[in-house]
Structure formats: structure tokens, C-alpha cells
């Protein structure tokens, strides 16, 4: 998709694009290169920061950093790489019927999902999805926390207003909000400073309520409590959705994403941890990476000794999204084009996919970093005797399990069940069962223990070991 912009003076391309609904992964630090956009037409001068973050070749090809690109006059940029699909959930759940309407909100780092629910029968009446407007202040939670230290409270106001608009004006009996610890702190206007440095322990992890007039929302809101570290109420409600707290044998809940999370446990006890995988699974930091939108290779198979790529929308391939990346790597291993240590075997160190889209050696390295972090987190917490692995989130929903096993992201010896947006479902389950909600939340918080993986010296070496693109088992 091309987008035509007419930026005002002193407005960056990032501002212009954001107004057009395109999310921004860079916090304006001009260092990460994450907000790379390709200028197809129009003059966008190259700054020093761009020279730092981009190669000569990229600059020649029209790539710029949106966060520091100042332009005058008409500019046409390529934005397909940042479109995305949002996963909602409408599974039937138990209900204690009561009058009126309520809502649940999955406040994600990248995306927002609001569901308005009929409390009499549990039906989902309306679903609203949007990009988190905080994304223009930074894609990852760290850059947003840093922004909040500089401009306290601003990101909280931004998100409360955006969610209020999504809720509409019809009166709501109550609204339950779930999100990770950073989202929780920013929403509530809590002090984020403890979350910006080791040991990442905040004293304000509890749930909190806002009366409707405080937020100017159509009903009172409750943000559910965090479990520890960066593991927030999105995972807490994932535990509710998968009934981890009611299982007699241990089960695992695995949320693969930029900030990956692992939860393992049963009614006897639950351990949880977060692991920073980086944006590779969302197509970030991958040369030809893009989100799962039109033109993305989302699926790769081996056919007649070559790679057969499926492209979303059926047209020419323009890039590769997370599920396509995992598939491509698995096929590459299968065909002997990628070794277990990640090295591409052909002379030009590229793995051509389709229509000129190819993976470079550095892309495989990014994948190794991301999958290594996730698999190491899973191995640290998961021993023998775990019955099943629930795979949460959008990526878990679209990924091909056989490929995830072949590259060593998922273990060989564990049954895997994708559970979709378990955060949203768990929140809806809690909304619809008000009589037991408090006791259940209290029980899960009491059962759960958060582990800081990076504090364990063994983790670093396990992480390096798990970067190998080869199958692994949790037992033996």
C-alpha cells in the first residue's frame, strides 16, 4: 500500500504516518532503525542519524527513518510493512447472567482490542481493534517507559482517551482491562522508574479501579493485577482462560512475541517469566520483514526440492512475516541450505524465497536470537511432566507447529494447543463470573511466583545454546 502525505513544516513523517493509522516502532531515539520507511516519491533529506542507522545502499533505495524525517511538500511512502491483523476471541464461556452491558480490553503493547459484552447472555456485541497510540512514542515497552520518565503521565492520558473512544457512549456496568506490567503502570499513572532497571521489581503491581467520572468512560474500570516483573494481567487472564490454576498436572502457557512470556504450573503452584525475544517474529529487524498483510509470504513449503511460497492476497511477494520466516528457515534446514548453527550454505549467503524476496544471513541471526530467547525461557521453567503447552497470541495462532519444532522454537516432546487471544478470553470469563472473580484472582496471584531469567547466570549460556536451529526435547 502506498500512502501519500503532505507533511506540515516541523512535522516528521512519523507524525504524518501515525495520523494515517500507521504504527511507529521507534521512540524518536533515532538509533534503532526500526521505523524504516521507503520513500517512493518526494524529497526527504538524509540526516546524520539516518546515516548512522542505515546503509549507503538503503539510503540510495529511498529508505529513511520516519522518526527524524522532515519533509516539505508531497511525499509518497510504502507502508504495507506496518499493516497488521489483530486477533480477537469469541469462544463461549461460562456465565452468571446479570443485567446490562460490560466490556473487556486487551491493552497490548502493539494492538488494542475492546469487546462490549451483553451481561445477560455473554454474547459479544461489538469488537473494536486499533493500534496502541503509544506506539508512536516507541515500539517496545522500554522506549515507552523511558518516554514516561521524561514526560510523566502523557502516555497514560493518550491510552485512556483512545480506549474511552473505542468503548463508545453507551453505559457499561464495568470494564475489565488486562495488559503487561508496563501497560498497567502507564495506564494507571504509576511510577515506572522501578521497571527501567534491574532487578525490575515494582512495588505497585496490584490491580486498581477508576470510577467512570475519573476516566470519562461510560463505566467504571478495573485494571487487573500483575504477576511480577513484566508479566502482567494479560498472562493472568491467560491462566484463567486455560484454567492453569485448576489443573492437577502442570501445563505451560507460552506467549511468543516481542516480549515473550512463559507460564508453567498447576493448582499446586505457578512460575512465570518474561523473555525479550525482539521483534523478529513480527517481521521487525528482518531485511525483507513485514507484518502479516497483503504481499507477505506467510507460508513456505518444500516442493520438488525447492521452496514454494504462499503470499497473502495472492499477488507478488513483497516481504516475509513471522510465520513465513519460521517456515522458510525450517525448509532451508530441510534442504540443507541452512546449517544448524544458522549459516547459509550457498556462496552469496542468501536464501531466495520468491519474487526477489530473500533472507540474508543477518535475518537468520535475528531469528536465532528471537527463538533462542523464547526456547531458553521455556526450558528454564519447564521440566519433565508438563502435560501440554498452550500457545497464546496471534503468532502462536498462525505459526506452523512442524516448522516451529524443526527450528527448535517449540520442543519435540510436548503436545501443543494454540489458544488464540487467551488474554481477552480470560478477561471476558472474569467479567461474566463476578461472584467468584475476586477469590480466583487472589488465588492465582498467591500461587504465582515470578522468576527473573536474566539474573540466573546459566540463562545466558542456555540462551546461546538454544540459538541453534535444531530440534530439542525438554526431557532426557
Amino acid at each position, binding site marked *: 500500500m502506498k500512502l501519500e502525505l503532505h507533511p506540515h513544516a516541523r512535522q516528521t513523517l512519523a507524525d504524518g504516518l501515525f495520523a494515517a493509522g500507521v504504527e511507529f516502532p521507534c*521512540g524518536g*531515539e533515532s*538509533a*534503532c532503525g526500526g521505523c524504516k520507511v521507503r520513500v517512493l516519491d518526494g524529497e526527504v533529506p538524509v540526516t*546524520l*542519524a539516518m546515516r*548512522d542507522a542505515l546503509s549507503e545502499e538503503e539510503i540510495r533505495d529511498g529508505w529513511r527513518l520516519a522518526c527524524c524525517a522532515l519533509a516539505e511538500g508531497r511525499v509518497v511512502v510504502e507502508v504495507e510493512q506496518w499493516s497488521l491483523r489483530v486477533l480477537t476471541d469469541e469462544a463461549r464461556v461460562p456465565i452468571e447472567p446479570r443485567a446490562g452491558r460490560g466490556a473487556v480490553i486487551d491493552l497490548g503493547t502493539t494492538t488494542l482490542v475492546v469487546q462490549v459484552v451483553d451481561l445477560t447472555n455473554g454474547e459479544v456485541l461489538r469488537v473494536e481493534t486499533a493500534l496502541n497510540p503509544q506506539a508512536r512514542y516507541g515500539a517496545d515497552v*522500554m*522506549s515507552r*517507559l*523511558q518516554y514516561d*520518565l521524561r514526560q510523566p503521565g502523557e502516555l497514560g492520558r493518550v491510552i485512556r482517551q483512545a480506549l474511552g473512544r473505542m468503548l463508545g457512549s453507551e453505559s457499561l456496568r464495568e470494564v475489565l482491562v488486562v495488559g503487561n506490567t508496563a501497560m498497567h503502570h502507564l495506564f494507571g499513572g504509576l511510577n515506572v522508574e522501578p521497571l*527501567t*532497571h*534491574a532487578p525490575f521489581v515494582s512495588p505497585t503491581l496490584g490491580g486498581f479501579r477508576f470510577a467512570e467520572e475519573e476516566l470519562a468512560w461510560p463505566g467504571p474500570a478495573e485494571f487487573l493485577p500483575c504477576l511480577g516483573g513484566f508479566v502482567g494481567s494479560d498472562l493472568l487472564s491467560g491462566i484463567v482462560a486455560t484454567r492453569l490454576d485448576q489443573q492437577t498436572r502442570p501445563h505451560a502457557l507460552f506467549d511468543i512475541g516481542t516480549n515473550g512470556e512463559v507460564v508453567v504450573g498447576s493448582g499446586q503452584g505457578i512460575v512465570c517469566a518474561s523473555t525479550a525475544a525482539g521483534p523478529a517474529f513480527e517481521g521487525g529487524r528482518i531485511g525483507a520483514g513485514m507484518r502479516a498483510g497483503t504481499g507477505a509470504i506467510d507460508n513456505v513449503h518444500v516442493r520438488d526440492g525447492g521452496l514454494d511460497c504462499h503470499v497473502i492476497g495472492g499477488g507478488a511477494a513483497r516481504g516475509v512475516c513471522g510465520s513465513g520466516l519460521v517456515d522458510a528457515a525450517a525448509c532451508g534446514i530441510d534442504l540443507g541450505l541452512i546449517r544448524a*548453527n*544458522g*549459516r547459509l550454505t550457498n556462496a552469496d*549467503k542468501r536464501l531466495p524465497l520468491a519474487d526477489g524476496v530473500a533472507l540474508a*544471513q*543477518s535475518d537468520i*541471526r535475528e531469528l*536465532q*536470537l528471537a527463538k533462542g530467547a523464547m526456547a531458553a525461557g521455556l526450558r528454564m521453567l519447564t521440566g519433565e511432566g508438563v502435560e501440554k503447552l498452550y500457545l497464546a497470541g496471534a503468532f502462536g495462532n498462525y505459526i506452523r507447529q512442524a516448522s516451529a519444532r524443526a527450528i527448535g522454537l517449540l520442543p519435540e516432546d510436548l503436545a501443543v494447543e494454540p489458544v488464540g487471544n487467551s488474554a481477552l478470553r480470560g478477561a471476558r470469563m472474569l467479567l461474566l463470573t463476578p461472584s467468584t472473580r475476586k477469590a480466583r484472582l487472589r488465588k492465582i496471584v498467591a500461587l504465582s511466583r515470578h522468576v*527473573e531469567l*536474566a*539474573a540466573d*547466570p546459566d540463562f*545466558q*549460556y542456555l*540462551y*546461546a*545454546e538454544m*540459538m*541453534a536451529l535444531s530440534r530439542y526435547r525438554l526431557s532426557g
Partner: protein
Amino acid sequence: MPDLDKLHQAVIEGDWKAAAAATQAAIAAGVAPLTIVTGCLVPAMDEVGRLFECEEYFVPEMLLSARAMKASMAIVRPLLAAAGTEPVGRVVIGTVKGDLHDIGKNLVASMLEGGGFEVIDLGADVAPERFIEAATTRNANLVALSALLTVTMPSMKTTVDAFQSAGLREKVKIMVGGAPVTQQYADAIGADGYSESAGGAVALARRLAVV
């Protein structure tokens, strides 16, 4: 010297047992400890750095090579000390306060040690006072700071400033690195040098140590 070829190979291949055995053999054959370092370990780790630069090697291979080099150094180090050999320079290295990331810093520490430096590794989450104390008591001429989070980068500035206020800024050279760190940032906080890679850090340290 066939023994040193074996050692060179063992370091490149990341085989620490072979590296230890080859080092023992070389010493038994009468090779001088300093020759093992400068004639073998330094070029071997340079080669490992080069392989990383050209994307042949990645973090796991680097860690294995570093471990092999360390296995050799563990044998050679006491002999060097006994002979009173001076290192190329003394480096105090650590990940700055608030940051727990260890791998990048460990790789740079290994590369520096393989490059003939005496390395005092303070680990991760290191407060400015600890850098100052170590640099003073160990008489270091270089301090290397690592940070992997944008939110912990300010700890680099705090550390550089602490050296300034302690009146030690002229006595040590400070180098910085880590994924979010840039040359621009290094200049802004008044560090003496920045390197994008572990291999580059050795060259930088050599340059800074000479001045």
C-alpha cells in the same frame, strides 16, 4: 611449531579440551608463555572476530571460542605472572548499573583477554563506585562499559561523570559499547571510544592503551 597450530585450531573451533591439551603440550615443548599469547591466542581470537564480522560465526561459536581461549589462558596466566610479564594494558569491564545483560560484555572481555590485555570483569549491574574502586586498586588504564537497554544507557554517563568527579578521568580511558550505543552517544557523554563489535573493541583498546 605444530603445537601452536593445534592450539590455534582448537580456539577457532571452540574446543576447550583440545585448547588446554595443546597449551600444556606447547609449554612442555618449551614454548615461552608470552609466545603462546602473542603468537597464537591473539591471532586466533582476531580470526574469530573476523569470522564473526563476516557472519560466518555467531554468538554461540564466539562463546565456545572464548571458552577455549580461556582454558588456555588459565594455564598460561600464572606462568606470565611468575615471569613478571606486563600485559598490553589493564581493562576493568562491566555492564552498567541497572542492566543484567552479560553475553555481549563477556564476549568483549574474552576478545580483550585473547588480545593480550589483563581483564578485570566486574560482571553485570555494576555501580559507578565499583568501577572506580576496581580501576584504582588494580591500576587499570582502561574502563569498558556495556549497556544493552536504552533505559540503562544513562548509567554510562553517570559512570563517566563519577570518574570525572573522583578526579580520575585523566588516568583512565573509557570505552563504551552495546546494541543501543552509538558513536554519537559515546561522544555526547564524553567517552574516549566506541566500538560496534567485539573484534573492533580490541583494536580500539589497543589504540587507547597506546596513547
